[in-house]
């Protein structure tokens, strides 16, 4: 029921480990693959080594998580060993990259090419680094970046990851399509803040952070819906999915694959198997044989 195809890549189910959720090491990415993920996304890789923000980096609130990791990572030049180990990943591997300049993105894409990830996500949507959103600031900048990256990625598909922190998702999505994006990921976290009133301070050391988990879901569903209408591109719908019903909702909004992040906290490390099971059960009860039959079903 759940096997699916995305950009010519075969997946046993549409659930993808979202970038930055445990994806720091090959061992853990492989463990997530073995725990039922249809595909796994690596933590975003940057141009240089970065330590990320000082703790607290995460705080929970009533219906979600707020994080500001600040993109810690060893930088692509220190990634050769990890990429080599990831050749043993039993499911399709998506890389994710970020940079401050177009050249940063191009350099990392050139480095990644020889390891042949199934796709490369462009993280132009991180709210937790000072210039994390600069490539989403206006559609023309976004288009130029995507177009430059696409020139260098060869046969590897490029998937820009959209931010909800924008005035117009349709314009941003359309800019990505014009730049040559093969698919879209919608969405990254929404910028937010949590203040502890006893301490009279924002909890996160970075003060603001990105909202994920259940609170993000309606925003993500809307962004997927609008991106689908605007571009018709395949979409990885990410944001607040913690149950099979949530995943079906994302698919009806127009997602071909569904990103799973904070659900690993809410449902535990078995989240993939649980959510896949719930999807199958819903499909059985509603006489749906294949996901293709309901992709974008909420439109029209």
């Amino acid at each position, binding site marked *: 029921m759940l096997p699916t195809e995305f950009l010519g890549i075969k997946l046993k189910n549409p659930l993808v480990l979202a970038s930055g959720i445990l994806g720091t090491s090959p061992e853990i990415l492989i463990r997530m693959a073995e725990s039922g993920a249809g595909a796994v996304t690596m*933590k975003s890789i940057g141009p240089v080594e970065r330590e990320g923000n000082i703790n607290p980096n*995460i705080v929970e609130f009533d219906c979600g998580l707020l994080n500001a990791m600040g993109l810690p990572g060893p930088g692509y030049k220190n990634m050769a060993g990890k990429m080599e180990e990831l050749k043993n990943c039993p499911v399709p591997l998506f890389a994710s990259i970020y940079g401050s300049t177009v050249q940063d993105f191009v350099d990392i894409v050139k480095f990644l090419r020889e390891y042949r990830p199934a796709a490369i996500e462009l993280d132009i949507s991180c709210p937790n680094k000072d210039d994390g959103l600069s490539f989403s600031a206006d559609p023309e900048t976004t288009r130029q970046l995507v177009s430059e990256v696409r020139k260098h990625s060869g046969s590897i598909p490029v998937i820009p990851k959209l931010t909800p922190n924008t005035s117009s998702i349709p314009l941003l999505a359309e800019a990505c399509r014009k730049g040559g994006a093969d698919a879209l990921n919608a969405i990254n976290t929404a910028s937010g803040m949590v203040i502890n009133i006893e301490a009279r301070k924002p909890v996160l050391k970075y003060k603001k952070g990105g909202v994920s988990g259940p609170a993000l879901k309606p925003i993500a569903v809307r962004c997927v819906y609008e991106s689908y209408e605007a571009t018709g591109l395949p979409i990885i719908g990410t944001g607040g999915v913690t149950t099979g019903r949530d995943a079906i909702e994302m698919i009806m909004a127009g997602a071909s694959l569904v990103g799973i992040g904070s659900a690993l906290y809410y449902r535990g490390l078995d989240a993939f198997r649980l959510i896949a099971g719930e999807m199958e059960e819903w499909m059985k009860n509603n006489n749906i044989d294949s996901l293709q039959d309901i992709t974008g079903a909420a439109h029209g």
Partner: protein
Amino acid sequence: MAKAKPEMTRILRIKKENPYVKTITLDMKMKAEPGQFVMIWLPGVDEKPMSIRSSNENLMITVEARGKCSEAFTCLKEGNSIGVRGPYGKGFSHVKDCIMVGGGIGMPPLMNLSESMDGNMRMLQGARTKNRLIFTDRHDMMTATDDGSEGHRGFVTDLLEKEILKKKPRIVYTCGPELMMVKVMEICKRHGVGMEASLERYMRCGIGICGSCVCGKSIVCLDGPVFTMEQLEKNPDFGKHALSRSAKKLTLGEYYGGKE
């Protein structure tokens, strides 16, 4: 599941254990197992994982001034408030007739475990020198110091070997410098004794989603920090590697800046 949200909590009492270490008693009750940890937030400074020293009555932690944040923890005064979230992770099993081997600031979770058992245990503590030892008001504590200023001169693992030869325990619990724990594991294996060890890795979320604390296939904040000998034997990074703050795989020597 524990909410990942710090609750500001008043400090009721502070006890000086030695010139570098203080035990802080908080105005909070928590249901937790020995070996589990909490995340302690000092607003405006940082947030760090700390083992639960006791949760029998009020929550207690024991902090050693090591760097900027832990130093700030030890400068707090009674009446000040700090943020607490947790408990997190998986604690120790509870097998009587055991030996506990602690090194330095690895003692607090072992003290917690020992207080949850009634007798039938042996406690060993190693430190660089006499004024680095803690909890010495416990009269059954056997000690070893590198310089011989108190107890056995040499490694605490020498004491462990002697104690096992005297009478084989059913299990050994250990927490402390990782190379000490590697040695403890070697000794336990040689004598056919089971063992559990509490690991330390750089932590951010403490709830198993950020991937900062990964060691081999294990997520230390979630699967651990306490692991069994069987798990550690299969973990290629135990005693060898740790991820830096930038998730670069370092040797333990590099990770601890040559201090391990």
